């Protein structure tokens, strides 16, 4: 299970039980969840329960595990229960037992056996071989589309003149804004996290944002999920008919085409092609990192192109504008050749990146994952002094700690000041005090106000009397 599918899992876990039940009616969805969302142990448990005629007593399940592994088992069971895949049962004798949720079990059986309706795994069109577009074309198409999105986020920030070659659609722009990646024409901290991730994780985080946004566009979440999971089981280079798709799914086609996840020859085409981004949705293999790079001729997303030296000079074997844009977020660029860019990491360049909201850890991770094969000969890949320095440059800026709150001052008497300071201290809201100036600072106004109110009432009561 790759890191990228964690986001999808997180999202799935939050869904209500009804959505789960609806989802489990689709064999392709069930297979995808089984294949890439579940940890290995949970898979084994599901397989064991799949063909069991009767609920499986919990005690028997416990017997399968060594006592020192109950923690692992509990984790696996927790996920299964959260996704409502297993159901706990209690019979009359009060013995606890498990069984799979019936529609999940039947869908999975269908998927494995290939029985039942085939529509769930897409309906291939019957075009002849030569009319189809090539895999290379799909790869370059998806890469171009996807990089356009990333470039839209990054380009403007680093001051590229005409940010990005082609513009991206308004729908995508809105989505990026909704996802919190982009705000008032500036990339946000989340946006950087997004850009610096590997492609598969990027795709999922955008899709999760898309799902969250779905109800507002009156699209069915279940349909979207079903479609996405179906995409993961399709074959690259094959085109599929749109005839079986629901209204929501037809609406999705347009958006996904813009992301580069699917390809359609024109807007009204009766078929669509899944691209590499789509078919790797539910697998661990990196989406654009393999195959795609070589297909586009030593292209941008190939792994390992950055060399960084102990004198903070950076050399990147790339000609991709996107990568240059990303590097220039935290590097002072110097020279560009057809296949290499050089620059230097400086205190100022790192400082600028940090002011954008990028963390030193993100920079280091980016450099580490893209370290040139020559760098990978040493362990760690990056020079330790450089890593330390990048971190220190970040800490340097983080010496100020801010607290939102209220300054209390102008106390009429020393006694009253002391009383209030003590009160604030006792309630744990005091942040700072200065006895000389008779003022102090609290992070919660309400607590102090409550006392003010109480005191006022008391004095009022006293005067009344």
């Amino acid at each position, binding site marked *: 299970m790759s890191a990228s599918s964690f986001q999808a899992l997180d999202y799935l876990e939050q869904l209500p039980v009804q959505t789960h039940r609806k989802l489990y009616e689709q064999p392709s969805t069930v297979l995808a969840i089984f294949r890439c969302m579940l940890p290995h142990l949970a898979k084994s448990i599901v397989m064991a329960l799949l063909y069991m005629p009767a609920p499986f007593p919990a005690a028997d399940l416990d017997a399968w595990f060594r006592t020192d592994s109950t923690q692992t088992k509990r984790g696996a069971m927790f996920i299964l229960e959260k996704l409502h895949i297993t159901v706990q049962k209690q019979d009359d004798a009060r013995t606890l037992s498990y069984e799979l949720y019936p529609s999940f079990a039947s869908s999975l059986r269908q998927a494995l056996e290939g029985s039942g309706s085939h529509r769930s795994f897409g309906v291939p069109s019957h075009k002849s071989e030569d009319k189809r577009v090539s895999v290379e074309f799909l790869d370059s198409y998806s890469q171009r589309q996807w990089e356009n999105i990333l470039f839209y986020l990054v380009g403007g920030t680093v001051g590229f003149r005409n940010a990005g070659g082609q513009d991206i659609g308004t729908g995508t722009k809105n989505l990026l804004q909704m996802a919190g990646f982009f705000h008032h024409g500036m990339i946000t901290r989340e946006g950087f996290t997004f850009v610096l991730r590997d492609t598969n994780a990027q795709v999922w985080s955008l899709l999760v944002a898309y799902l969250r946004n779905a109800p507002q566009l009156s699209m069915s979440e279940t349909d979207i999920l079903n479609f996405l999971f179906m995409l993961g089981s399709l074959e690259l280079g094959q085109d599929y008919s749109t005839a079986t798709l629901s209204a929501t799914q037809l609406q999705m086609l347009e958006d996904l085409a813009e992301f580069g996840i699917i390809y359609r020859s024109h807007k009204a085409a009766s078929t669509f092609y899944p691209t590499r981004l789509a078919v790797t949705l539910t697998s661990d293999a990196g989406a654009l990192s393999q195959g795609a790079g070589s297909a586009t001729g030593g292209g941008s997303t190939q792994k390992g192109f950055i060399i960084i*030296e102990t*004198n903070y000079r950076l050399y990147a074997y790339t000609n991709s504008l996107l990568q240059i844009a990303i590097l220039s977020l935290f590097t002072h660029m*110097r*020279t*560009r050749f057809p296949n290499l860019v*050089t620059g230097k990491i400086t205190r100022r360049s790192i400082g600028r990146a940090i002011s954008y909201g990028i963390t030193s850890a993100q920079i280091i991770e980016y450099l580490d994952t893209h370290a040139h094969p020559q760098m990978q000969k040493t362990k760690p890949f990056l020079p*330790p002094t450089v890593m*330390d320095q990048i971190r220190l440059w970040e800490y340097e800026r983080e010496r100020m700690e801010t607290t939102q709150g209220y300054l209390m001052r102008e106390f009429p008497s020393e006694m009253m000041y002391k009383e209030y300071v003590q009160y604030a201290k006792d309630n744990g809201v005091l942040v700072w005090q200065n006895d000389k100036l008779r003022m102090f600072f609290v992070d919660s106004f309400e607590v102090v106000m409550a006392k003010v109110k109480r005191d006022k009432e008391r004095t009022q009561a006293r005067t009344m009397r």
Partner: protein
Amino acid sequence: MPPKKRKAEAAEAEVDGQEWSGGELSDADTFKRLENKFSLVGHQKPRHQTDGASGLFQNDQASQPLKPDHASRPMWVVEDGKIILESFSPLFPEAQDFLINIAEPISRVSRMHEYTLTAHSLFAAVSVGHTPDEIINRLEKYSKAVLNSTVVSFIKKSSAAYGKAKIVLKKTLSYIESDDPALLRQLLQDPVISQSLADSSATLITEAAPKFGQMMIPGTKMAAGANQIAQPELAAEEPEEPNKIIAALREDDEEEEEEAKVHSFQIRSETREAVIKQCWEIGYPLTQEYDFNNDQVNANLNIDLKPHAQIRYYQEKALSKMFSNSRARSGVIVLPCGAGKTLVGITAACGVKKSCIVLCNSTMSAIQWRTEFLNWSNINPDDIAVLTSMEKNVFPKSAGVLVTTYHMLAASGKRAHDTAAALKFIQEREWGLLIADEVHIIPAAMFKKVTYSVASHCKLGLTATLLREDDKIGTLNFLVGPKLYEANWQELSQQGHIAKVQCAEVWCRMAPEFYREWLNTTGSNSPKKQLLAVLNPYKFQACQFLIDYHHKRGDKTIVFSDNVYALTKYSIKLGCPQIHGGTSQHERQLVLENFRNNPAIHTIFLSKIGDTSLDLPEATCLIQISSHYGSRRQEAQRLGRILRAKRRNDEGFNAFFYSLVSKDTDEMTYAARRQSFLVDQGYAFKIITRLEGIEDRTDLFFRTLTDRKELLTEVCLAKESDAAEEHIAGDTFSMNLNKRKKGGARRTAGTLADLSGGAGMSYIEYNKTKNKELSKSKGVKNNFIRKLNSSHTNAKKRKAAGQ
């Protein structure tokens, strides 16, 4: 600038020191103009934008076409002359050997190396025999992309201009020599040059070119067994039959290069300077070479390397560049400290075998040079003399070696009788070789003065760090010669010729009371601010901690502080001996001998007088507590103190270099700047924010607030003059920068007692320095030192008796 000029006028110059300050300005202008003329900047075409990203780059060459087999070629060439080289390419070794000849190394870290093509580096390349076409072809061979036309034309232009004509001293007569007669004729057309001719008929002399590779560098394997092969005498035709020669010349023009010929014309020696300047002006700078084999006027010196002296491969490489063509070429050789610069100098002297003058930057190093000469060569001890403020000797015979300091030669004003006599001796001779040690520190004005007063055929500059913060290093190209060789630090340290060093920058938190005072002190560079940062109690503790730690490991430690007040404070508190500008010569020797031989003395404190040419192979750890602003050179020189560590070839041995920096002060920014040179040589500075175990120590000083407050009071009471950096008289350092900066009067606040000398009247020593202890206790002083001292005094007595 070829500085042999004005040998005849040198005496006059010495009489009137002021003349030079006037003449200097115009020279500086000339330098500047020439540097601009031959820099690449002017050549650049306006940048053309290719896409949105172009604006990010200073140099965008994305449009330069890539060769189809670019993956197997190792380098990129930037329009501005910068070269980036992949060190992991199979072609790397040969490309590196080539680049070091034609370009200046900028950074040689590990995977990517950077060089830059400059007019001077191309000058050096041409002068050791590369042709412009060869340079371009080989660059094209290694380059991944097609070579930029700007670079090609730059190379052509620079190398066409440089090194085509040489100025040669033959039989103490000056000739302009070239293998291109057309060029010489062009020079002869020039009004200034034509007036300087020795022979008004303006004819060219032609002779066979000397063959390459006849020079044996002493100490190499080739030379070790065999006797020095007799140098073939060059057919030194005198211009007695001009017509015949011109006829031969014409023939030569037709039948292209059947035999290599050189052509020359003679100029009057006294016009050398004018000619050299004029050649610059018209764009044909002259190379200087010394045909020492044919010099029958100056007496030979009987000097050879001892059989046990084997020079290393990089020393040989450097020397072979100096001596190719069987002549000695002026220039600068750059080797890291501890890599055997002295031996290179001595070998050069053995090669030339003429009288040799060695200029050092301090008396201490002058003494070291003499010792090294006696160590490595078979020179008769009587033939080598030392001229310093303490010893004023000259050699008795017609040839010999004289070791002296820049300061001795440069100081103006009335000199002591014996000094004046010695100077006269120097000025009246013709020297075969001038060795300028630590050539980087010499300000141009002073160096000129020195070189004018010494008539030398050939100059060899030695340094580890060809760096100056004031950008005056370029003038050395003209004053001494081009850089002939620069060694790769990382390579030498991997091969064990210099020690491996772990570098660290230790960040010390400022003590709050000190920081408050620091913030309240106005003036960004005020001495008080610096003093507060240096005497930061936490820094003191870190220093103490590190000294202890390394003492326990068995290391010997040097602590450097530029600030003498802090130096004294530290050394007294920690009970370690110290040396600074005010320490007497005798005391210095004593402390150094003790550091070398006495196990009880494991740490010494040095001010900046210890930065250069101090040979302490015992030291394996270095701590720097204060430094001269952002001087990259000082940082490298200080690192050099531990590069020659004796134990460097032990398995897993590491020397340690610590730079202690007070956090949030100016020291932080300076530290980064200081390290930039070393970092480009491949040294990595680890930043230590916390010393492991320092909190648990209870024996550190200034642990309590009262102690710290007391220290703060002392610092606050320190006089401005105490806090300021030391100015050392007698060393070349302070001479330069401080003098001419401000013309106006200088006002200092002081008490009347200070002015009248009353402040020093009562002499009570509460805090005794360790130095005093060393000189008093007879027990510490070991036999060796006593013997050394007594033999020294005996020798003096004997000499006195002899005279």
